[in-house]
């Protein structure tokens, strides 16, 4: 697909941003723009933020945080996963496709896995098509 995809990644200052920065240093360019929003901990990210992103036209949104039991703040990543699961249900209910939202657990040195996460989301957007709300923005 030649059309540029809008992919947003919420990354925590620990596992998520670490992996993103590593990916930026090591890997070739991603096949699409990824806009990264950093937060101290994924626990801050709420369902509202995920839904807002889709309303504003994002094609896919993922959150990247620390490995399951390694959250710097104990369980902010687990909290985020609950919100992502909620987002999937709402997106499915609205017919947008729950696969547009995802959560990845990464260690701060997993640059390759970050790139792979982006590739997964790009693949999903290609399968589901662009967000219908993206065209008019």
């Amino acid at each position, binding site marked *: 697909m030649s059309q540029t995809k*809008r992919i947003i990644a919420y990354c925590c200052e620990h596992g998520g941003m670490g992996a993103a920065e590593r990916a930026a240093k090591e890997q070739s360019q991603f096949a699409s723009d990824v806009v990264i929003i950093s937060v101290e901990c994924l626990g801050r*990210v709420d369902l509202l933020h995920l839904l807002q992103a889709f309303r504003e036209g*994002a094609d896919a949104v993922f959150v990247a945080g620390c490995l399951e039991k390694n959250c710097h*703040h104990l369980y902010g990543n687990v909290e985020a996963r609950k919100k992502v699961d909620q987002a999937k249900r709402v997106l499915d209910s609205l017919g947008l496709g729950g696969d547009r939202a995802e959560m990845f657990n990464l260690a701060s040195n997993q640059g390759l896995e970050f790139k792979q996460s982006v590739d997964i989301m790009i693949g999903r957007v290609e399968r589901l098509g662009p967000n219908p709300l993206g065209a008019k923005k």
Partner: protein
Amino acid sequence: MSPVPLRSPESLVKTEVVKRAVVLGDGLGASIISLELADQGFDVDRLMPGNEPMDLALYAFPSELSRNVALVKMKSLSSTPRIRLHRDCTVSSVAGSAGDFEVSFTEAKSKGIIKGGAVVLAQDPGLAAVDLGPTVVSNSEMRRMIEGDETIPRVVVFIEGSGMTTACPAQGSTAFIENALEIKRKRTDIQIYVLTKDIHAPGAFERTYQAAQASGIVFFRGDFSYRSSQDEPNCMIIRDPVAGEVKIRPELIVRDEAFDLGSNSNLARKLGLSVDREGRILSINTRLHPGETIREGVFVCHGLGASILASDNISEACAIASSISELLSKDFLEHGAEVAFVDKEKCSACLACVRICPYDAPFIGEKGKAEIRIASCQGCGICVSLCPSKAIDQSNWTDAKMSAESEIASKGASG
């Protein structure tokens, strides 16, 4: 909506750091931490549950010399001016935050309070009650027999494992080497066998291990198995891939120590620390942040719960002392850059924030509404996201800023 991410001023709380550490424990770790910190110029109050520091029989040393050195160091505690020793102590509570703790305790029936900048729980776990029978002793009991010049039977077999499924600290079987060699040195006629899956012989232990092998101690390692003989009494049959089938008649069996890892859980809870299912106190990251727990300023030294080797204990203690001195060397601690704060008008006092916070920062205050302890808040934002009445916001990551960023990201991504 404004295209510029919104900022808010930082609210700061300054805590003056009390240059004193409160060390709880009577083992080697607590002693080393106290000595190291005193060396750095900090005052130390050491609270021991008993009357004397723990004896060194439980720890494994690579040689008699290193054991004696440690003993001398432990004795110097009482004469080091910066260290105050308290005996027969029970801690009742630890209030306050990093830099400014108040430890309430009883010392031999009288009550006391100490103010300190850092608190470290360095109490070794207690021994688990294990009854292994008359011809089995633990490794530390073996050490006491050696030091007490007791009569030792002619065939001694060291078998790794404690007879319990859990509570074995690391390097237990390495601890056998010191005792085995010591026995052999006193009585060359005693037959000694050591049965263990593997031997780690770090540092000076390597020399001890070589000496042990040279002295005639027989090591069974790797893929061996053993059982009691059906036909002969008191006979053990070992099947080893190299030696084949070997019959021995052990007169004394020595096993690993068994610790009750949960023996500190009550004290841990008083300090606001979490314990896992086996009772171990959780620390953040033993490699990158030695001794640090979820509560800033409260440290934990696992000691014998982590390893039975004296060298491991000393290393851990030195690392923790280093973490603590980093904290105590600051004159002020500043908090507030990324903290959460409550709008009391909106608060429903539903307790969601109180129940979820990893740091126990929120509490219901006098007005019946939630408040956040600034010095405890680590800015994770979990409560902000969770609050059902949107009463909590976070400086630096306000709701308005999150919405603005999301808008820019979604709209601007096409480039």
